[in-house]
Each structure stands twice: as structure tokens, then as C-alpha cells.
């Protein structure tokens, strides 16, 4: 699984490094650097070809659009993962709390109704079956 990412990462690193060197050449250009510049430009094209070839191995990978918001704001995308996990856990706890409360309520309700309507509740329990205690 990680091998296909390693290949893409390698190509991207080489591509970025090439662009960085291109920027250095251009920032203070000398006529003697023209050949090197042309070489870098063609390497840019081949670099894009290599990155494009990696697409086939990664066609099944999905990236949530919300991550792009973080990147566009200059924020660490791992914060998105962290916040997803925290939200999931918080929601999990919230729903668990609701379920537990509802179970306790049901148990109390049946208890009190049994005191007031013992025969009806006996019929109810016979139809519904005994619920496990909360």
C-alpha cells in the first residue's frame, strides 16, 4: 500500500527540487545558464509525465475536499484528521449518553407503570418479552 505512495512522493520531491533550482537560475540569470535552464524545463515535462503515470496506481484513493480547505489556509492537514477523530469521539459519547438515558428511562417507566397498571403491564411484557436491565 505504501509503495505506491513512496513512488509518487519520490517523483514529487524530484519535481519540486527541479522547480526550486529553476527558480534559482532565473532569479539571477546569466546567458551561460541558458542550457541548464532548457534542461530544467524539459525535466519539468518529464517530471509531470512520471507523476501522471502514478495516477493509475492511485485511482482508488479518495481525498476529502475539506482537507483542501486546511491546505489553502496554510494549515497542517493532520489537524483535519485530528478534528475528525475528536468529532467522532464526541458524537459517539453524546449518542451513547442518549442511549443509556433512554434505557434508564424505559426501565423506570415500566417499573412505575407496573405499580399502577399491573395486569396491563403483565400483558405488555408477555407480548414484548423481558428487556435486559440497563
Amino acid at each position, binding site marked *: 500500500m505504501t509503495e505506491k505512495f513512496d513512488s509518487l512522493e519520490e517523483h514529487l520531491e524530484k519535481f519540486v*527540487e527541479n522547480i526550486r533550482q529553476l527558480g534559482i537560475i532565473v*532569479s539571477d540569470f546569466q546567458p551561460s545558464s541558458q542550457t541548464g535552464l*532548457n534542461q530544467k524545463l524539459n525535466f519539468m515535462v518529464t517530471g509531470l509525465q512520471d507523476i*501522471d503515470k502514478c495516477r493509475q496506481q492511485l485511482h482508488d484513493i479518495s481525498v476529502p475536499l475539506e482537507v483542501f480547505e486546511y491546505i489553502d489556509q*496554510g494549515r497542517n492537514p493532520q489537524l483535519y484528521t485530528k478534528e475528525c477523530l475528536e468529532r467522532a469521539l464526541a458524537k459517539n459519547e453524546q*449518542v451513547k449518553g442518549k442511549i443509556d438515558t433512554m434505557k434508564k428511562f424505559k426501565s423506570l417507566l415500566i417499573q412505575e407503570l407496573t405499580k399502577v397498571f399491573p395486569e396491563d403491564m403483565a400483558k405488555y411484557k408477555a407480548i414484548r418479552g423481558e428487556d435486559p436491565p440497563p
Partner: protein
Amino acid sequence: LSRRRPGTTELTGSTNLITHYNLEHAYNKFCGKKVKEKLSNFLPDLPGMIDLPGSHDSSSLRSLIEKPPICGSSFTPLTGAMLTGFRLHAGPLPEQCRLMHIQPPKKKNKHKHKQSRTQDPVPPETPSDSDHKKKKKKKEEDPERKRKKKEKKKKKNRHSPEHPGVGSSQASSSLR
């Protein structure tokens, strides 16, 4: 009792979903310790001022998705005639354009990236060279930093001649 009972499922909100989907490791990794805020902490080797919002220089990913560039289906190398369009005038760029290759100040990271860096442009590395450098996992230091490190070592030597790190640090500085 007119309504039918809702169906039961094995997985409900009362189950610990983190444990159920074997995400404890991920949870401890991301939530157990502080995750740094900036994009440059995630990509320390990426040149340029990447911590700025993408809207500042029209480099946002959202704009790329909403308005994808119209391009051909293949990548063709640039011919000689095409390359004549890239003949540049000699001399330095205006100051605002020179910032592209400047990297943000790097903080010490445990996980260093494998590629080595040079100030001057070099021909593309052969695959064996890059693999060799990846194994070393060491960046080239600026001459200024090297000089400062040497001065520091000299000071240490003066104060503690039997310093254990002297021999090993000298060896490591010679590694490329």
C-alpha cells in the same frame, strides 16, 4: 402496541467506534500529542512561503478544482523552437519575485526528508545517487552553519578535551 419495534443492529452509538474500527493508534498519534498548526510543519522541505493562504497568490487547491486548467492529454518535451521562447535577459529579478526559492526557517525535526539540498543548481541526480543520499538521510549544511559548528566544537575541545561527542560529530559532519 400498534407500531412495530425498530430493528436492532450490532453497531450502535453506544459502541466505542474508535476501538471498533481499530483506530486507537491513529487516535493516540493525532490526539495524544500536539499537532503543529502550520503547513510548513507537515511539509518542512517544500520551498516557498507555503504558510500563506492560497488566495494570496492564486495558488489555492479549491480554485484548481472549481476551475481546472484546460490542457492537452499528453506531455510532450519542448522542442528547440519552443525553447527559444525561454531565452531570458541577464540580471537579477525584482525583489518581490525572488522569494520563491526561499524556504521558511526550519525547526528541528525528528523525521528529516531524505533529499539533499544545494545552493547552486546541479544536473538531475541519477537514481543510484538519490538512493544513496536517501540512505544517509542528511542534508548539506550552509557554509556559514558549518563554520559556526566548527567554532562551537573548538570551544568544547578547549573546555573538555575528553568530550565523547567530538570524534563522532566530526565523523558525521564529513558524511554527505
